[in-house]
Protein backbone atom coordinates (compact mmCIF):
# COMPACT_ATOMS: atom_id res chain seq x y z
CA UNK A 1 0.00 0.00 0.00
CA UNK A 2 1.24 3.48 -0.81
CA UNK A 3 1.69 6.19 1.75
CA UNK A 4 -1.50 7.85 0.56
CA UNK A 5 -3.48 4.67 1.02
CA UNK A 6 -2.26 4.34 4.60
CA UNK A 7 -3.20 7.94 5.17
CA UNK A 8 -6.73 7.51 3.91
CA UNK A 9 -7.14 4.31 5.92
CA UNK A 10 -6.00 6.10 9.07
CA UNK A 11 -8.40 8.99 8.46
CA UNK A 12 -11.42 6.73 8.24
CA UNK A 13 -10.28 4.73 11.24
CA UNK A 14 -10.17 7.95 13.22
CA UNK A 15 -13.71 8.75 12.19
CA UNK A 16 -14.92 5.39 13.50
CA UNK A 17 -13.18 5.79 16.89
CA UNK A 18 -14.51 9.26 17.54
CA UNK A 19 -18.09 8.43 16.59
CA UNK A 20 -18.20 5.75 19.31
CA UNK A 21 -16.91 8.19 21.95
CA UNK A 22 -19.69 10.77 21.62
CA UNK A 23 -22.51 10.94 24.20
CA UNK A 24 -25.22 13.39 25.05
CA UNK A 25 -23.16 14.83 27.87
CA UNK A 26 -20.79 16.45 25.38
CA UNK A 27 -23.46 18.96 24.51
CA UNK A 28 -25.26 18.62 21.27
CA UNK A 29 -25.51 21.49 18.97
CA UNK A 30 -28.87 20.23 17.86
CA UNK A 31 -30.07 17.93 15.14
CA UNK A 32 -32.05 20.43 13.05
CA UNK A 33 -30.98 21.15 9.46
CA UNK A 34 -29.11 24.41 9.15
CA UNK A 35 -27.48 26.40 6.35
CA UNK A 36 -23.75 25.75 6.27
CA UNK A 37 -21.02 27.58 4.41
CA UNK A 38 -17.37 28.49 4.48
CA UNK A 39 -14.93 30.75 2.61
CA UNK A 40 -11.37 29.49 2.63
CA UNK A 41 -8.24 31.13 1.28
CA UNK A 42 -4.78 29.67 1.32
CA UNK A 43 -1.82 28.33 -0.54
CA UNK A 44 -0.87 25.42 -2.74
CA UNK A 45 2.60 24.00 -2.34
CA UNK A 46 4.29 21.59 -4.71
CA UNK A 47 4.86 21.16 -8.41
CA UNK A 48 8.01 23.04 -9.27
CA UNK A 49 8.34 24.06 -5.62
CA UNK A 50 6.32 27.19 -6.23
CA UNK A 51 3.61 28.36 -3.88
CA UNK A 52 0.40 29.75 -5.27
CA UNK A 53 -3.00 30.62 -3.98
CA UNK A 54 -6.19 28.63 -3.56
CA UNK A 55 -9.66 29.94 -2.79
CA UNK A 56 -12.82 27.89 -2.20
CA UNK A 57 -16.30 28.57 -1.01
CA UNK A 58 -18.76 25.87 -0.02
CA UNK A 59 -22.48 26.15 0.64
CA UNK A 60 -24.89 23.52 1.84
CA UNK A 61 -26.68 22.18 4.86
CA UNK A 62 -25.55 20.81 8.20
CA UNK A 63 -27.34 18.06 9.98
CA UNK A 64 -25.59 17.50 13.26
CA UNK A 65 -22.03 16.39 12.65
CA UNK A 66 -22.51 15.94 8.92
CA UNK A 67 -22.53 18.77 6.42
CA UNK A 68 -23.00 18.42 2.69
CA UNK A 69 -22.98 21.00 -0.05
CA UNK A 70 -21.64 22.33 -3.28
CA UNK A 71 -18.64 24.55 -3.81
CA UNK A 72 -16.53 26.48 -6.24
CA UNK A 73 -13.18 28.13 -6.18
CA UNK A 74 -10.08 29.40 -7.90
CA UNK A 75 -6.70 27.71 -7.86
CA UNK A 76 -3.47 28.88 -9.42
CA UNK A 77 -1.11 26.38 -11.06
CA UNK A 78 1.55 28.49 -12.73
CA UNK A 79 0.33 29.38 -16.24
CA UNK A 80 -3.02 27.75 -15.57
CA UNK A 81 -5.90 29.07 -13.46
CA UNK A 82 -8.39 26.44 -12.46
CA UNK A 83 -12.00 26.99 -11.44
CA UNK A 84 -13.05 23.92 -9.52
CA UNK A 85 -16.69 23.04 -9.05
CA UNK A 86 -17.26 20.30 -6.53
CA UNK A 87 -19.48 18.44 -4.16
CA UNK A 88 -18.44 18.53 -0.55
CA UNK A 89 -19.03 16.44 2.53
CA UNK A 90 -17.75 17.35 5.97
CA UNK A 91 -17.88 15.37 9.19
CA UNK A 92 -17.04 16.54 12.69
CA UNK A 93 -15.17 13.66 14.26
CA UNK A 94 -14.45 15.45 17.51
CA UNK A 95 -16.38 18.25 19.16
CA UNK A 96 -15.74 20.46 22.13
CA UNK A 97 -18.83 22.59 22.76
CA UNK A 98 -19.07 24.77 19.66
CA UNK A 99 -15.68 23.84 18.23
CA UNK A 100 -14.86 20.77 16.19
CA UNK A 101 -12.23 18.83 14.37
CA UNK A 102 -13.51 17.82 11.00
CA UNK A 103 -12.65 15.91 7.91
CA UNK A 104 -13.85 17.28 4.62
CA UNK A 105 -13.82 15.68 1.19
CA UNK A 106 -14.27 17.79 -1.94
CA UNK A 107 -14.53 16.21 -5.36
CA UNK A 108 -15.57 17.48 -8.72
CA UNK A 109 -14.32 19.07 -11.92
CA UNK A 110 -11.91 21.93 -12.48
CA UNK A 111 -12.09 24.08 -15.57
CA UNK A 112 -8.58 25.24 -16.50
CA UNK A 113 -7.84 28.48 -18.33
CA UNK A 114 -4.40 29.11 -19.83
CA UNK A 115 -3.06 32.50 -18.77
CA UNK A 116 0.56 32.09 -19.82
CA UNK A 117 2.30 33.71 -22.75
CA UNK A 118 1.84 32.24 -26.19
CA UNK A 119 5.16 31.03 -27.56
CA UNK A 120 6.30 29.31 -30.70
CA UNK A 121 6.29 25.88 -29.10
CA UNK A 122 2.94 26.37 -27.37
CA UNK A 123 0.35 28.26 -29.36
CA UNK A 124 -3.42 28.13 -29.87
CA UNK A 125 -3.86 26.57 -26.44
CA UNK A 126 -7.32 25.13 -25.82
CA UNK A 127 -8.70 25.67 -22.33
CA UNK A 128 -8.58 22.44 -20.39
CA UNK A 129 -9.80 20.82 -17.25
CA UNK A 130 -10.29 17.58 -15.44
CA UNK A 131 -11.26 15.91 -12.22
CA UNK A 132 -10.38 17.40 -8.84
CA UNK A 133 -10.04 15.63 -5.50
CA UNK A 134 -9.35 17.44 -2.26
CA UNK A 135 -9.44 15.67 1.12
CA UNK A 136 -8.87 18.02 4.09
CA UNK A 137 -8.48 17.90 7.84
CA UNK A 138 -9.32 20.89 9.88
CA UNK A 139 -10.33 22.63 13.03
CA UNK A 140 -13.34 24.91 13.38
CA UNK A 141 -13.95 27.23 16.30
CA UNK A 142 -16.56 29.76 17.19
CA UNK A 143 -15.81 33.45 17.05
CA UNK A 144 -18.82 35.61 17.84
CA UNK A 145 -21.40 34.84 15.14
CA UNK A 146 -18.90 33.16 12.81
CA UNK A 147 -16.88 30.02 12.66
CA UNK A 148 -13.14 30.27 11.91
CA UNK A 149 -11.65 27.47 9.86
CA UNK A 150 -8.13 26.15 9.72
CA UNK A 151 -7.62 23.27 7.29
CA UNK A 152 -4.88 21.39 5.54
CA UNK A 153 -4.97 18.67 2.99
CA UNK A 154 -4.07 17.30 -0.37
CA UNK A 155 -5.32 18.50 -3.73
CA UNK A 156 -5.23 16.58 -6.98
CA UNK A 157 -6.13 18.32 -10.21
CA UNK A 158 -6.03 16.75 -13.66
CA UNK A 159 -5.74 19.07 -16.64
CA UNK A 160 -6.27 17.78 -20.17
CA UNK A 161 -5.68 20.30 -22.96
CA UNK A 162 -4.31 20.63 -26.47
CA UNK A 163 -2.06 23.06 -28.36
CA UNK A 164 0.14 23.24 -31.40
CA UNK A 165 3.37 24.85 -32.55
CA UNK A 166 3.59 28.14 -34.38
CA UNK A 167 6.79 27.68 -36.34
CA UNK A 168 7.24 27.77 -40.11
CA UNK A 169 9.60 25.08 -41.36
CA UNK A 170 10.13 24.94 -45.10
CA UNK A 171 12.10 21.86 -45.82
CA UNK A 172 9.71 19.06 -45.08
CA UNK A 173 9.11 16.74 -48.05
CA UNK A 174 6.17 18.28 -49.84
CA UNK A 175 5.75 20.84 -47.05
CA UNK A 176 5.59 23.21 -45.25
CA UNK A 177 2.89 21.67 -43.10
CA UNK A 178 0.65 22.82 -40.31
CA UNK A 179 1.76 21.37 -37.01
CA UNK A 180 -0.33 18.66 -35.38
CA UNK A 181 -2.37 19.31 -32.25
CA UNK A 182 -0.70 17.88 -29.21
CA UNK A 183 -2.88 16.56 -26.40
CA UNK A 184 -1.52 16.80 -22.88
CA UNK A 185 -2.79 15.13 -19.74
CA UNK A 186 -1.15 16.71 -16.74
CA UNK A 187 -1.76 15.46 -13.20
CA UNK A 188 -0.98 18.11 -10.60
CA UNK A 189 -0.67 17.34 -6.89
CA UNK A 190 -0.37 19.91 -4.14
CA UNK A 191 -0.30 20.27 -0.40
CA UNK A 192 -2.96 22.82 0.53
CA UNK A 193 -3.33 24.94 3.67
CA UNK A 194 -6.31 27.23 4.06
CA UNK A 195 -7.74 29.69 6.54
CA UNK A 196 -11.23 31.11 6.44
CA UNK A 197 -14.59 31.67 7.97
CA UNK A 198 -18.20 30.69 7.66
CA UNK A 199 -21.55 30.29 9.29
CA UNK A 200 -22.21 27.09 11.21
Amino acid at each position, binding site marked *: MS*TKSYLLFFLFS*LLTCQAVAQTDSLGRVGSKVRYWNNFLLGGLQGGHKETSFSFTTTHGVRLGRLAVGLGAGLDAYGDWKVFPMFASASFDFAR*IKNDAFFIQMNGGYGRAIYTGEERATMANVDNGGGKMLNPM*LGYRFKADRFRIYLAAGYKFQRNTYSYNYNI*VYDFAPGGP*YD*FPRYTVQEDMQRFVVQLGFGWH
Partner: protein
Amino acid sequence: MDTLENRLQRRIHVSLYALLFLTVLLGISVLLEGCSDKCQLTTEYAYFEPVYTTLDDLRSSVRVEAPKPLESVGKIYYKGETLFVNEPGNGIHIINNADPAHPVAQKFLSVPGSFDLAVKGNTLYTDSYVDLVAFDIRDLSNIRETARLQNVFTSVNSLGFIVNANGVVTDWEKKKMVNLSEPDCETVLQPWGGVYYGDGIALSSEAASNFSARSAITPGTGSGPGVGGSLNRFAINAGHLYMLDGADMQVIDVTTENNPVAKKRVNIAWGIETIFPYDKNIFVGSTAGMHIYDISTPEAPVKVSTYEHVRSCDPVVVEGQYAYVTLRSGTTCQGFNNQLEVIDIKNLASPQILKVYPFTNPHGLGIDNTTLFICDGDDGLKAFDASDVNAIDKNMLAHYKDINATDVIPFDNVLMMIGTGGIYQYDYSNTSKITLLSHIEVVPHVD
Protein backbone atom coordinates in the same frame (compact mmCIF):
# COMPACT_ATOMS: atom_id res chain seq x y z
CA MET B 1 -12.63 8.65 39.67
CA ASP B 2 -12.90 9.07 35.98
CA THR B 3 -15.15 12.05 35.68
CA LEU B 4 -16.84 13.31 32.62
CA GLU B 5 -14.43 16.18 32.50
CA ASN B 6 -11.42 13.88 32.54
CA ARG B 7 -12.82 11.80 29.71
CA LEU B 8 -13.47 14.92 27.72
CA GLN B 9 -9.96 16.18 28.21
CA ARG B 10 -8.54 12.89 27.09
CA ARG B 11 -10.57 12.94 23.94
CA ILE B 12 -9.37 16.43 23.15
CA HIS B 13 -5.79 15.44 23.68
CA VAL B 14 -6.18 12.38 21.51
CA SER B 15 -7.81 14.37 18.76
CA LEU B 16 -5.18 17.09 18.82
CA TYR B 17 -2.39 14.60 18.65
CA ALA B 18 -4.17 12.79 15.86
CA LEU B 19 -4.59 15.98 13.90
CA LEU B 20 -0.96 16.89 14.39
CA PHE B 21 0.15 13.44 13.36
CA LEU B 22 -2.01 13.46 10.27
CA THR B 23 -0.88 16.88 9.23
CA VAL B 24 2.74 15.92 9.51
CA LEU B 25 2.05 12.70 7.67
CA LEU B 26 0.28 14.55 4.90
CA GLY B 27 3.08 17.04 4.55
CA ILE B 28 5.77 14.40 4.45
CA SER B 29 3.90 12.19 2.02
CA VAL B 30 3.29 15.01 -0.42
CA LEU B 31 6.77 16.45 -0.15
CA LEU B 32 8.33 13.06 -0.59
CA GLU B 33 6.36 11.71 -3.50
CA GLY B 34 3.23 13.64 -4.19
CA CYS B 35 4.28 17.01 -5.49
CA SER B 36 5.85 16.03 -8.76
CA ASP B 37 3.42 16.68 -11.57
CA LYS B 38 3.03 13.96 -14.13
CA CYS B 39 2.52 14.68 -17.78
CA GLN B 40 1.69 12.73 -20.92
CA LEU B 41 1.93 14.23 -24.41
CA THR B 42 0.18 12.44 -27.27
CA THR B 43 -0.65 13.17 -30.86
CA GLU B 44 -2.10 11.32 -33.79
CA TYR B 45 -0.27 10.97 -37.08
CA ALA B 46 -0.94 9.61 -40.51
CA TYR B 47 1.97 7.40 -41.49
CA PHE B 48 3.35 7.48 -45.03
CA GLU B 49 5.82 5.01 -46.44
CA PRO B 50 8.09 5.82 -49.37
CA VAL B 51 7.64 3.93 -52.60
CA TYR B 52 10.96 3.26 -54.30
CA THR B 53 11.77 2.74 -57.95
CA THR B 54 15.15 1.25 -58.71
CA LEU B 55 17.59 3.26 -60.78
CA ASP B 56 17.68 0.47 -63.36
CA ASP B 57 13.91 0.70 -63.82
CA LEU B 58 14.09 4.48 -64.10
CA ARG B 59 16.91 4.34 -66.65
CA SER B 60 15.00 1.94 -68.82
CA SER B 61 11.76 3.94 -68.72
CA VAL B 62 12.74 6.80 -71.04
CA ARG B 63 10.14 7.11 -73.81
CA VAL B 64 9.30 9.39 -76.70
CA GLU B 65 5.56 9.89 -76.61
CA ALA B 66 2.90 11.73 -78.53
CA PRO B 67 2.30 15.31 -77.43
CA LYS B 68 0.10 15.76 -74.39
CA PRO B 69 -1.22 18.66 -72.27
CA LEU B 70 1.20 20.60 -70.14
CA GLU B 71 0.52 19.64 -66.52
CA SER B 72 3.05 21.96 -64.93
CA VAL B 73 5.76 24.26 -66.19
CA GLY B 74 9.42 24.01 -65.28
CA LYS B 75 12.50 25.25 -67.11
CA ILE B 76 12.32 26.29 -70.75
CA TYR B 77 14.94 26.40 -73.42
CA TYR B 78 14.74 27.87 -76.84
CA LYS B 79 16.81 26.61 -79.74
CA GLY B 80 16.26 27.34 -83.43
CA GLU B 81 12.52 27.32 -83.89
CA THR B 82 11.88 24.79 -81.16
CA LEU B 83 10.72 25.47 -77.65
CA PHE B 84 11.69 22.86 -75.06
CA VAL B 85 9.51 22.97 -71.95
CA ASN B 86 10.36 20.90 -68.91
CA GLU B 87 7.51 19.38 -66.94
CA PRO B 88 9.16 18.96 -63.53
CA GLY B 89 9.90 15.36 -62.73
CA ASN B 90 8.25 13.96 -65.83
CA GLY B 91 10.05 15.05 -68.97
CA ILE B 92 10.21 17.62 -71.74
CA HIS B 93 7.55 18.94 -74.09
CA ILE B 94 8.91 19.68 -77.54
CA ILE B 95 7.03 22.47 -79.27
CA ASN B 96 7.43 23.78 -82.78
CA ASN B 97 7.59 27.54 -82.28
CA ALA B 98 8.32 28.59 -85.87
CA ASP B 99 5.21 30.74 -85.58
CA PRO B 100 5.12 32.01 -81.99
CA ALA B 101 1.51 33.03 -82.49
CA HIS B 102 0.64 29.39 -83.17
CA PRO B 103 2.97 27.04 -81.31
CA VAL B 104 2.42 23.35 -82.10
CA ALA B 105 3.25 20.59 -79.64
CA GLN B 106 5.21 17.85 -81.40
CA LYS B 107 6.47 15.30 -78.90
CA PHE B 108 6.74 14.57 -75.22
CA LEU B 109 10.05 13.15 -74.09
CA SER B 110 9.31 11.15 -70.95
CA VAL B 111 12.35 11.26 -68.66
CA PRO B 112 11.74 10.46 -64.98
CA GLY B 113 13.43 12.93 -62.64
CA SER B 114 13.97 15.60 -65.30
CA PHE B 115 14.11 19.13 -63.91
CA ASP B 116 16.70 21.00 -66.00
CA LEU B 117 17.74 21.09 -69.61
CA ALA B 118 20.08 22.66 -72.12
CA VAL B 119 20.60 22.27 -75.86
CA LYS B 120 23.83 22.33 -77.81
CA GLY B 121 23.74 21.81 -81.52
CA ASN B 122 21.58 18.76 -82.17
CA THR B 123 21.77 17.42 -78.63
CA LEU B 124 19.42 17.94 -75.74
CA TYR B 125 20.84 17.42 -72.25
CA THR B 126 18.65 16.81 -69.25
CA ASP B 127 18.98 15.40 -65.77
CA SER B 128 17.29 12.23 -64.60
CA TYR B 129 17.65 12.21 -60.85
CA VAL B 130 21.33 11.26 -60.53
CA ASP B 131 22.15 10.93 -64.23
CA LEU B 132 22.85 13.31 -67.09
CA VAL B 133 21.18 12.09 -70.29
CA ALA B 134 21.89 13.21 -73.86
CA PHE B 135 19.34 12.95 -76.69
CA ASP B 136 19.87 13.39 -80.41
CA ILE B 137 17.17 15.83 -81.54
CA ARG B 138 18.37 16.23 -85.07
CA ASP B 139 15.19 14.57 -86.29
CA LEU B 140 12.30 15.32 -83.93
CA SER B 141 10.36 12.37 -85.28
CA ASN B 142 13.22 10.08 -84.27
CA ILE B 143 14.60 11.30 -80.94
CA ARG B 144 17.16 8.87 -79.47
CA GLU B 145 19.05 8.62 -76.21
CA THR B 146 22.71 8.76 -77.21
CA ALA B 147 24.60 8.97 -73.93
CA ARG B 148 24.14 8.80 -70.18
CA LEU B 149 26.52 9.86 -67.45
CA GLN B 150 25.39 7.79 -64.49
CA ASN B 151 25.54 9.12 -60.94
CA VAL B 152 27.06 12.44 -61.99
CA PHE B 153 24.75 14.31 -59.59
CA THR B 154 25.81 13.51 -56.06
CA SER B 155 23.86 16.12 -54.09
CA VAL B 156 20.32 15.35 -55.18
CA ASN B 157 19.26 14.88 -51.56
CA SER B 158 19.89 18.60 -51.08
CA LEU B 159 17.17 19.24 -53.67
CA GLY B 160 14.68 17.13 -51.77
CA PHE B 161 15.02 13.82 -53.60
CA ILE B 162 15.56 10.71 -51.55
CA VAL B 163 18.02 8.44 -53.31
CA ASN B 164 19.61 5.50 -51.56
CA ALA B 165 20.41 1.82 -52.05
CA ASN B 166 16.70 1.11 -52.54
CA GLY B 167 16.49 3.50 -55.47
CA VAL B 168 14.61 6.77 -55.75
CA VAL B 169 11.49 7.68 -53.81
CA THR B 170 8.92 8.18 -56.54
CA ASP B 171 5.80 8.15 -54.41
CA TRP B 172 4.52 8.17 -50.83
CA GLU B 173 1.79 5.78 -49.76
CA LYS B 174 -0.48 6.36 -46.78
CA LYS B 175 -0.46 3.26 -44.64
CA LYS B 176 -2.15 3.77 -41.29
CA MET B 177 -2.82 6.10 -38.37
CA VAL B 178 -0.43 5.98 -35.45
CA ASN B 179 -0.48 7.50 -31.97
CA LEU B 180 2.79 8.72 -30.59
CA SER B 181 3.10 9.41 -26.88
CA GLU B 182 5.82 11.11 -24.83
CA PRO B 183 6.01 11.17 -21.01
CA ASP B 184 7.87 14.48 -21.09
CA CYS B 185 5.63 17.36 -22.07
CA GLU B 186 8.61 19.60 -22.78
CA THR B 187 9.66 17.35 -25.67
CA VAL B 188 9.83 19.13 -29.02
CA LEU B 189 8.91 16.74 -31.76
CA GLN B 190 10.23 17.00 -35.29
CA PRO B 191 10.09 20.75 -35.99
CA TRP B 192 8.63 20.51 -39.47
CA GLY B 193 5.32 19.29 -38.19
CA GLY B 194 5.84 15.61 -38.76
CA VAL B 195 8.06 12.90 -37.43
CA TYR B 196 10.22 10.22 -38.96
CA TYR B 197 8.58 6.99 -37.93
CA GLY B 198 9.89 3.63 -38.90
CA ASP B 199 10.92 3.82 -42.53
CA GLY B 200 8.67 6.68 -43.48
CA ILE B 201 7.21 9.89 -42.20
CA ALA B 202 4.21 10.55 -40.00
CA LEU B 203 2.17 13.70 -40.45
CA SER B 204 -0.64 15.15 -38.37
CA SER B 205 -4.15 14.40 -39.54
CA GLU B 206 -4.54 18.00 -40.69
CA ALA B 207 -1.32 17.95 -42.71
CA ALA B 208 -2.06 14.48 -44.07
CA SER B 209 -5.24 15.70 -45.70
CA ASN B 210 -3.18 18.28 -47.62
CA PHE B 211 -0.21 16.02 -48.33
CA SER B 212 0.74 15.73 -51.96
CA ALA B 213 3.05 12.87 -52.85
CA ARG B 214 3.78 14.64 -56.10
CA SER B 215 5.04 17.73 -54.27
CA ALA B 216 6.99 15.58 -51.85
CA ILE B 217 9.07 13.99 -54.59
CA THR B 218 9.59 17.21 -56.57
CA PRO B 219 12.53 19.27 -55.44
CA GLY B 220 12.31 22.82 -54.20
CA THR B 221 15.30 24.61 -55.60
CA GLY B 222 15.08 27.59 -53.30
CA SER B 223 14.24 29.67 -56.31
CA GLY B 224 10.65 28.62 -56.21
CA PRO B 225 9.23 26.30 -58.86
CA GLY B 226 12.15 27.04 -61.15
CA VAL B 227 11.63 27.98 -64.76
CA GLY B 228 14.03 28.66 -67.52
CA GLY B 229 16.02 31.63 -68.52
CA SER B 230 17.42 33.21 -65.42
CA LEU B 231 16.47 30.32 -63.10
CA ASN B 232 18.34 27.50 -64.84
CA ARG B 233 20.82 25.21 -63.15
CA PHE B 234 22.33 24.28 -66.52
CA ALA B 235 24.30 26.58 -68.79
CA ILE B 236 26.25 25.92 -71.96
CA ASN B 237 29.27 28.01 -72.83
CA ALA B 238 32.49 27.42 -74.73
CA GLY B 239 31.62 23.86 -75.66
CA HIS B 240 31.00 22.87 -72.08
CA LEU B 241 27.96 22.27 -69.96
CA TYR B 242 28.06 23.82 -66.49
CA MET B 243 25.67 22.27 -63.98
CA LEU B 244 24.90 23.22 -60.38
CA ASP B 245 24.82 20.27 -58.01
CA GLY B 246 24.39 21.07 -54.33
CA ALA B 247 27.21 23.46 -53.43
CA ASP B 248 29.26 22.53 -56.48
CA MET B 249 29.48 23.31 -60.16
CA GLN B 250 30.15 20.28 -62.33
CA VAL B 251 31.85 20.86 -65.68
CA ILE B 252 30.92 18.52 -68.54
CA ASP B 253 32.85 18.52 -71.79
CA VAL B 254 30.24 18.39 -74.57
CA THR B 255 32.62 19.25 -77.36
CA THR B 256 31.55 15.92 -78.82
CA GLU B 257 27.83 16.31 -78.27
CA ASN B 258 26.89 12.65 -77.99
CA ASN B 259 29.86 11.85 -75.76
CA PRO B 260 29.65 14.06 -72.67
CA VAL B 261 32.61 13.66 -70.34
CA ALA B 262 32.61 14.74 -66.72
CA LYS B 263 35.48 17.07 -65.94
CA LYS B 264 36.27 19.28 -63.00
CA ARG B 265 33.94 19.73 -60.05
CA VAL B 266 34.25 23.14 -58.40
CA ASN B 267 33.02 23.87 -54.90
CA ILE B 268 31.28 27.25 -54.85
CA ALA B 269 29.08 27.70 -51.78
CA TRP B 270 25.88 26.42 -50.21
CA GLY B 271 22.75 28.05 -51.41
CA ILE B 272 23.68 28.35 -55.10
CA GLU B 273 20.61 28.23 -57.27
CA THR B 274 20.99 29.78 -60.71
CA ILE B 275 23.62 30.02 -63.41
CA PHE B 276 23.98 32.49 -66.27
CA PRO B 277 26.71 32.39 -68.90
CA TYR B 278 28.00 35.62 -70.42
CA ASP B 279 31.02 36.07 -72.62
CA LYS B 280 33.91 34.22 -70.94
CA ASN B 281 32.26 34.19 -67.54
CA ILE B 282 29.74 32.29 -65.52
CA PHE B 283 27.52 34.13 -63.05
CA VAL B 284 26.15 31.97 -60.25
CA GLY B 285 23.29 33.30 -58.13
CA SER B 286 22.94 32.14 -54.55
CA THR B 287 20.91 33.01 -51.49
CA ALA B 288 23.82 35.06 -50.15
CA GLY B 289 25.13 36.73 -53.28
CA MET B 290 26.45 36.38 -56.81
CA HIS B 291 29.63 34.48 -57.64
CA ILE B 292 31.60 35.31 -60.80
CA TYR B 293 33.84 32.71 -62.43
CA ASP B 294 36.23 33.07 -65.35
CA ILE B 295 35.94 30.23 -67.85
CA SER B 296 38.68 31.34 -70.23
CA THR B 297 39.90 27.81 -69.61
CA PRO B 298 36.50 26.12 -69.89
CA GLU B 299 37.39 23.00 -67.93
CA ALA B 300 38.95 24.95 -65.08
CA PRO B 301 36.66 27.77 -63.90
CA VAL B 302 38.47 30.28 -61.74
CA LYS B 303 36.71 32.41 -59.17
CA VAL B 304 36.94 36.12 -59.88
CA SER B 305 34.80 37.64 -57.15
CA THR B 306 31.67 37.42 -55.03
CA TYR B 307 29.09 40.11 -54.69
CA GLU B 308 27.27 39.62 -51.42
CA HIS B 309 23.74 40.63 -50.60
CA VAL B 310 21.18 39.95 -47.91
CA ARG B 311 19.73 36.45 -47.75
CA SER B 312 17.31 36.06 -50.62
CA CYS B 313 16.62 34.16 -53.81
CA ASP B 314 18.42 35.96 -56.63
CA PRO B 315 18.31 35.14 -60.29
CA VAL B 316 20.82 37.12 -62.34
CA VAL B 317 21.20 38.18 -65.98
CA VAL B 318 24.02 40.14 -67.53
CA GLU B 319 24.26 42.54 -70.44
CA GLY B 320 27.26 44.70 -71.20
CA GLN B 321 28.88 46.04 -68.04
CA TYR B 322 25.85 45.52 -65.83
CA ALA B 323 24.41 42.58 -63.99
CA TYR B 324 20.77 42.66 -63.01
CA VAL B 325 19.77 40.72 -59.91
CA THR B 326 16.30 40.35 -58.41
CA LEU B 327 15.88 39.63 -54.72
CA ARG B 328 12.60 38.39 -53.36
CA SER B 329 11.01 37.32 -50.10
CA GLY B 330 9.13 34.13 -49.55
CA THR B 331 9.24 31.13 -47.25
CA THR B 332 11.69 29.13 -49.35
CA CYS B 333 13.89 32.16 -49.91
CA GLN B 334 13.81 33.22 -46.25
CA GLY B 335 14.50 36.80 -47.20
CA PHE B 336 12.61 40.01 -46.66
CA ASN B 337 13.69 42.19 -49.57
CA ASN B 338 11.85 42.55 -52.86
CA GLN B 339 13.97 44.54 -55.24
CA LEU B 340 16.04 44.78 -58.39
CA GLU B 341 19.74 45.49 -57.97
CA VAL B 342 21.86 46.86 -60.80
CA ILE B 343 25.51 45.97 -60.34
CA ASP B 344 28.41 47.49 -62.23
CA ILE B 345 30.66 44.62 -63.30
CA LYS B 346 33.04 46.62 -65.43
CA ASN B 347 35.69 45.44 -63.03
CA LEU B 348 34.71 41.82 -62.48
CA ALA B 349 37.09 41.54 -59.56
CA SER B 350 35.18 44.24 -57.72
CA PRO B 351 31.47 44.40 -58.62
CA GLN B 352 29.79 47.48 -57.24
CA ILE B 353 26.11 48.01 -56.61
CA LEU B 354 24.85 50.92 -58.64
CA LYS B 355 21.15 51.20 -57.98
CA VAL B 356 18.31 49.45 -56.13
CA TYR B 357 14.70 49.48 -57.32
CA PRO B 358 11.83 48.20 -55.13
CA PHE B 359 9.45 45.66 -56.62
CA THR B 360 6.51 43.61 -55.37
CA ASN B 361 7.95 40.06 -55.46
CA PRO B 362 10.33 39.81 -58.43
CA HIS B 363 11.25 36.38 -59.74
CA GLY B 364 13.02 35.73 -63.04
CA LEU B 365 14.17 38.38 -65.43
CA GLY B 366 15.55 38.76 -68.91
CA ILE B 367 17.24 41.45 -70.95
CA ASP B 368 17.68 41.95 -74.67
CA ASN B 369 19.36 45.03 -76.04
CA THR B 370 18.51 47.18 -72.96
CA THR B 371 14.88 46.05 -72.91
CA LEU B 372 14.54 44.59 -69.42
CA PHE B 373 11.72 42.22 -68.47
CA ILE B 374 10.91 41.57 -64.80
CA CYS B 375 8.54 38.83 -63.67
CA ASP B 376 7.03 40.42 -60.58
CA GLY B 377 5.11 37.45 -59.19
CA ASP B 378 1.41 38.15 -58.74
CA ASP B 379 2.00 41.72 -59.88
CA GLY B 380 2.51 40.41 -63.39
CA LEU B 381 5.07 41.05 -66.10
CA LYS B 382 6.82 44.42 -66.39
CA ALA B 383 8.95 45.71 -69.25
CA PHE B 384 11.42 48.59 -68.95
CA ASP B 385 13.85 50.54 -71.12
CA ALA B 386 17.07 50.00 -69.18
CA SER B 387 19.29 52.15 -71.39
CA ASP B 388 19.61 54.53 -68.43
CA VAL B 389 20.35 52.19 -65.54
CA ASN B 390 19.84 55.03 -63.08
CA ALA B 391 16.25 55.62 -64.20
CA ILE B 392 14.82 52.19 -64.98
CA ASP B 393 11.72 52.76 -62.87
CA LYS B 394 10.92 55.92 -64.81
CA ASN B 395 10.92 54.12 -68.16
CA MET B 396 8.30 51.40 -67.88
CA LEU B 397 7.25 50.19 -71.31
CA ALA B 398 4.45 47.81 -70.35
CA HIS B 399 2.79 46.20 -67.34
CA TYR B 400 0.71 43.04 -67.75
CA LYS B 401 -1.32 42.53 -64.61
CA ASP B 402 -3.61 39.69 -63.56
CA ILE B 403 -1.05 37.04 -64.43
CA ASN B 404 1.53 35.30 -62.30
CA ALA B 405 4.90 35.74 -63.98
CA THR B 406 7.85 33.60 -62.94
CA ASP B 407 10.54 33.73 -65.62
CA VAL B 408 11.24 34.90 -69.17
CA ILE B 409 13.48 34.32 -72.14
CA PRO B 410 13.65 37.31 -74.48
CA PHE B 411 15.00 36.25 -77.84
CA ASP B 412 14.83 37.76 -81.26
CA ASN B 413 11.84 39.99 -80.48
CA VAL B 414 9.83 37.13 -78.99
CA LEU B 415 9.46 37.02 -75.24
CA MET B 416 8.66 33.60 -73.80
CA MET B 417 7.23 33.95 -70.32
CA ILE B 418 6.46 31.25 -67.77
CA GLY B 419 3.77 31.63 -65.16
CA THR B 420 1.45 29.45 -63.17
CA GLY B 421 -1.06 29.82 -66.02
CA GLY B 422 1.30 28.36 -68.60
CA ILE B 423 3.56 29.78 -71.30
CA TYR B 424 2.89 33.20 -72.74
CA GLN B 425 4.66 34.59 -75.83
CA TYR B 426 4.88 38.31 -76.61
CA ASP B 427 6.14 40.28 -79.58
CA TYR B 428 8.40 43.07 -78.31
CA SER B 429 9.75 44.20 -81.69
CA ASN B 430 7.96 47.45 -80.99
CA THR B 431 8.77 48.16 -77.36
CA SER B 432 6.08 50.82 -77.14
CA LYS B 433 3.50 48.26 -78.19
CA ILE B 434 4.32 44.85 -76.74
CA THR B 435 1.60 42.39 -77.79
CA LEU B 436 0.55 38.92 -76.70
CA LEU B 437 1.08 36.32 -79.41
CA SER B 438 0.02 33.02 -77.83
CA HIS B 439 -0.74 31.22 -74.60
CA ILE B 440 -0.08 27.53 -73.93
CA GLU B 441 -2.26 26.62 -70.98
CA VAL B 442 -1.36 24.39 -68.07
CA VAL B 443 -3.79 21.53 -67.49
CA PRO B 444 -3.12 20.52 -63.86
CA HIS B 445 -2.66 16.87 -63.08
CA VAL B 446 -5.64 15.18 -61.42
CA ASP B 447 -4.92 12.09 -59.28
